[in-house]
């Protein structure tokens, strides 16, 4: 038995494969739900209701999807160029704390329409700064960035923890370690009134489209793809490897930093060390689910958010653990990878 590369991938296959993968994942997770003693279809109905059953739950799901879109894009652009940035979690926190540092007092005198974009840029820059460490180590000493960017996550979170228990600590928070709150006019406007859904969601979608455009149409997109696929071939063709990787890293780190900034400005208003329930790591899953396609990232992020938000509702009404959401997302990643493999290869004897 061997695998043969498919040269033509019909459209129906490309649309059907991800759907089949999701169905397979739900079926497999259904076995676990049945073992937990709950009716399987009812459980899935509850998940769907929990995620989209009301105006409130639907907006909540999209709110949860917003940082996932951005961290998913951060992973997708980096992985496309074979830059293994596992550090989106740390970059997320750097973006968040930078916004809290500048947006609570220092720049609070600026009017909203100037302050908000400025803070977003500051958040993105903070994420970029953090990723430059593993990038430099890779380019200078060939240190594997998987290890360095991963370890840096813990350093970043501890650094943030130090700041919010120290210089940036909110004196009015009854001793809780949390940062000073953003000025009110630094908060993102709501997309839908009386919900938590903010314009960050729209911004994330626009950015996904922009990233898609950059990757598929621009010189930079083509060069970064070449550098990822065959570094020595790219260098021979005149692609400046170091500077291309630098740009890719800045884009990736910037997106993750922006995710942190938008989460603070859109939802919380301040930073704690549980601001992210692992958005940075989930971004990797989202990117892989989307096969690194920036537009697919949006759908994958919404799917992931649906499972997490919906599982809360299911858990409350059926009394089975919310871990089922983690399991389903993990299974869907596996089935998706298998499905994508079979869109690219066929089995031959």
């Amino acid at each position, binding site marked *: 038995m061997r695998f043969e590369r498919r040269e033509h991938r019909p459209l129906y296959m490309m649309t059907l494969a991800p759907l089949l993968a999701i169905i397979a994942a739900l079926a497999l997770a259904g076995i676990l739900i049945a073992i937990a003693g709950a009716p399987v279809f009812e459980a899935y109905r509850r998940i769907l209701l929990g995620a989209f059953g009301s105006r409130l739950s639907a907006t909540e799901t999209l709110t949860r999807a917003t940082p996932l879109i951005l961290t998913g894009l951060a992973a997708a652009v980096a992985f496309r160029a074979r830059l293994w940035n596992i550090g989106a979690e740390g970059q997320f926190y750097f973006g968040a704390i930078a916004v809290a540092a500048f947006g609570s007092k220092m720049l609070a005198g600026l009017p909203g329409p100037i302050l908000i974009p400025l803070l977003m840029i500051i958040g993105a820059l903070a994420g970029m700064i953090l990723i430059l460490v593993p990038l430099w180590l890779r380019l200078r000493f060939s240190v594997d960035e998987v290890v360095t960017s991963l370890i840096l996550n813990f350093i970043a979170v501890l650094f943030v923890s130090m700041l919010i228990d120290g210089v940036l600590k909110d004196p009015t928070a009854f001793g809780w370690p949390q940062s000073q709150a953003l000025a009110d006019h630094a908060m993102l406007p709501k997309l839908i009134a009386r919900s938590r859904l903010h314009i960050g969601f729209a911004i994330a979608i626009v950015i996904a489209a922009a990233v898609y455009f950059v990757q598929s149409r621009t*010189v*930079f997109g083509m060069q970064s*793809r*070449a550098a990822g696929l065959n570094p020595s*071939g790219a260098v*021979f063709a005149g692609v400046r490897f170091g500077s291309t990787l630098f740009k890719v890293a800045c884009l990736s780190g910037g997106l993750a930093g922006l995710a942190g900034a938008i989460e603070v400005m859109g939802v919380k208003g301040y930073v704690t060390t549980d601001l992210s329930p692992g958005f940075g790591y989930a971004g990797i899953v989202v990117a892989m689910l989307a096969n690194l396609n920036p537009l697919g990232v949006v759908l994958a992020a919404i799917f992931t958010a649906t499972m997490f938000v919906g599982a809360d509702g299911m858990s409350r009404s059926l009394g089975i653990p919310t871990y089922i959401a983690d399991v389903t997302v993990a299974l869907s990643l596996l089935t998706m990878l298998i499905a994508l493999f079979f869109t690219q290869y066929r089995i031959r004897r």
Partner: protein
Amino acid sequence: MATPLPDCRLRDMTTAVLTIEGVSKRFGSTLANDNISLSLAKGEIVALLGENGAGKTTLMSILFGHYVPDTGRILIDNVELPKGKPRAAIRAGVGMVHQHFSLAPNLTVLENIMTGTERLWSLTSQMTAARNKLLAISERFGLKVDPDARLGDLSVGEQQRVEILKALYNDARILILDEPTAVLTQIEAEKLFSTLKQMAAQGLSLIFISHKLDEVMATADRIVVLRGGKVAAERQASQTSKAELAELMVGHRVTRPTREKSIPGAIALEARDITLKSGGVERLKKISFHVRAGEVLGIIGVSGNGQASLGQILSGTANRSSGELLLFNKPVGDLDVAAVIEAGVGRIPEDRNRDGAIGEMAIWENAVLERLSSYSKHGLVDRGAGVAFAQEIIEAFDVRGGSAASRTRLLSGGNMQKLILGRNLHERPRILIAAQPARGLDEGAVAAVHGRILEARRQGTAVLLISEDLDEVIALADRIQAIVGGRLSAPIDASEADARLLGLMMAGEWKDKSGTEHAI
């Protein structure tokens, strides 16, 4: 010419040890093997000759049990071999030496050879017995090797010897060698051929796969030519000629293009005392040369003598440590790839898969990647113009096997090389740096590539040809310099050159016409 082998009772040309009967194998819409039959006698060397894609490797994979044939059968000593079972093939005495070795570089020679021969759960290892067996085999066939050397420390030629020994250790009586010389230097290849003849004289039967006419004529007793999945012809080596084989292999007459006289113009590229140090080693030591417009300068040498570094400096991917480089009589500083291309230099890299193209990208993307500035506006790639450019190359340079949008990896070596040549020559470069331009290509593609290089020369391009193929250099170059250990010899005129003299030059010592002795 094939030298007649000594008659030996171990060689018995009348009994077939291996018979392949009517084997066919289809992959999708291509019939890779079409009703192929052939036989191999004891102590015989049969060459399987054919162009890339003729079905040689498929046939051998079927014989070795990697693929199951659609029809046909394989007999060893008149017993049918079960289909698709490599283990059965090994047990029946078939040994295979792959083009890419299946050896572990971190193990010793002895460990590599023993791998897979002992049971996983046996408590004792038969190291001493194995060592004695290995030494006996290496003595018998004249395959000298140190059993305790770490494989990774050996040269490619020695590694191949280990691969052969491994097959013999498993009591192979039929040895299949898949393009055994593709990775070897000229000298290593000659050593291999004498080993093969010695093995045949000892009663082993050999099939070796090749597309090189010289080595087939020099080594084989019998030659089976495959074309388009079918046996096109079968010839005794003593009763055929290179010209006939070439014609049989390609299906029509192939004549390599010949060089006409030319009157070289002004000096286009000149190097003065260029030195390159990298990693603490002097790769190039004060080399000097010049190439004129409409002239081919051949740099010949055994690979690993500094050619790669020279190619990199001239391609813009490495910078010289000292020395002067002149383009069109103007000294230039350090050049990057963009500056080199801007100056009108076309570049053919020595490793086309690693440097020449990005296999996973489309043909049109590879066509424009090195001059993206001309195929983009405001940072946006002009796909339409890129595809049009690729289509022009595909037509003008006869690139077959893909359209502008298909993946470059699908192209055969020859067609990929035509694409690389095309994207350079289409822009009428004033200088062409061609490193090993015909390496690994089949006869038809070699003729096409050589023809293009000579055409560029005719149109006034200064060509620097870096090659280790004597025939290629003699056929294309007007003047020849040898590179040995990072030093360059003084040039000789191509009219004085023959294979013997060039061989001596590549070794670093030779006498010229007037009898003066030279050494690099």
